């Protein structure tokens, strides 16, 4: 992995400009960050109320289910008590992966992407639950901010400065493959119990990517390694097109036209809605950053519910 080399960007921002722009994003999302923090506090933290559980010889409360076997065993099976269990402290590593490709500039999704970063970074730092990293992707993957560095306002400005939205490809497959490696390395470095470390990737992109089958496979692999991947589709172009009465631009309207060989060997044209083959299980479409706290919290809550059920 290489760090983004700001030198190869022609119309590169000065650090002062980047600070100014980052500060604008931070202030425009300040109130929303509070809302998101409250949502996430409920979702991310384990239930603080302690539960009574277990089978012990001594304890606080009798386990009613154990009483009959206890008597039936002539008082030999005497682990009939429950104790309070202390909830374990989870920690989080969250990676924001931002689409640095040209299509983001075309669809005017850049602003919305940075508002999302400012929002999530602020909420994470207020929660004090873990480490944050930011990567940019397009043709390749570049680390704009690593897990081991605290995410301050100055770090935000540095991150801001490193994006050009000029990469001429959007290789999401490579993003996933390399992020899995990054998460593995970060897990090894993390303090505390690995089983209480939760890893989450938020991909912020206009959502246009190719090679859905191999992406799907990598999403599955990430899931097996307990890395949750949430894809946030910033659909900024939709609103603009609607307002100006221009041609439809939303990802919801996007269709894929594919020529595939049928059983007789003839080429047939297949048309499907782009989102019907979208390879991510957890994705949300955001047209306005105002919507983000609620939908993001909703997606995470759903994921935690599933993890708890399957565990």
């Amino acid at each position, binding site marked *: 992995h290489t760090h983004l080399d700001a030198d190869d960007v022609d119309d590169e921002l000065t650090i002062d400009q980047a600070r100014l722009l980052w500060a604008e994003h931070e202030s425009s999302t300040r109130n929303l960050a509070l809302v998101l923090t409250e949502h996430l506090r409920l979702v991310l933290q384990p239930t603080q109320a302690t539960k009574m559980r277990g089978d012990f010889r001594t304890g606080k409360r009798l386990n009613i289910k154990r009483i009959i076997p206890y008597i039936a065993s002539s008082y030999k099976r005497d682990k009939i008590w429950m104790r309070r269990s202390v909830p374990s402290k989870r920690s989080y590593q969250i990676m924001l992966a931002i689409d640095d490709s040209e299509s983001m500039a075309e669809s005017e999704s850049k602003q919305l992407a940075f508002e999302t970063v400012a929002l999530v970074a602020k909420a994470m730092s207020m929660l004090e639950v873990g480490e944050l990293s930011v990567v940019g992707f397009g043709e390749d993957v570049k680390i704009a901010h690593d897990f081991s560095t605290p995410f301050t306002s100055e770090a935000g400005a540095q991150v801001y400065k490193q994006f050009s939205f000029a990469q001429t490809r959007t290789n999401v497959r490579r993003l996933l493959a390399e992020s899995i490696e990054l998460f593995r390395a970060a897990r090894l470095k993390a303090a505390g119990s690995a089983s209480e470390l939760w890893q989450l990737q938020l991909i912020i992109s206009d959502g246009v990517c190719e090679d859905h089958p191999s992406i799907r496979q990598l999403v599955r692999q990430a899931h097996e390694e307990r890395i949750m991947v949430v894809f946030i589709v910033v659909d900024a172009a939709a609103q603009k097109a609607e307002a100006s009465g221009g*041609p439809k631009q939303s990802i919801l309207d*996007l269709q*894929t036209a594919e020529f595939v060989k049928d059983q007789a060997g003839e080429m047939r044209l297949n048309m499907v809605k782009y989102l019907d083959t979208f390879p991510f299980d957890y994705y949300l479409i955001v047209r306005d950053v105002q919507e983000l706290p609620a939908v993001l919290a909703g997606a995470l809550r759903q994921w935690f519910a599933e993890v708890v059920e399957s565990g």
Partner: protein
Amino acid sequence: MTDVSAMQKQSQVRIHLHTRSGDIELPQDTGPILVSTELKRYQLSTLVNRLLETEQPVPLEFLINGQFLRTSLDEFLTRNGISAETTLSVEYVKALIPPLYVASY
């Protein structure tokens, strides 16, 4: 590093189809369509005819930035230095004379 040239064949591009001839206008605004950059005139013609739901296919020609498409989209993009990240505005017109390269289908 992964071989980039090997991955290029997977490329797709978003196109926005439009025409100036009222009789072959698409029934409704279709929105952007994602296609393989391997497509040539013939496949694009098939695509528009599908969208038009024509009984007899109308042979079509395609113009991008005022130039007739005579190669695959991929070649066109490369030659004109256009990235596949942009939405291509593709105009279609009825092919007046049957193209000479029919045999190459």
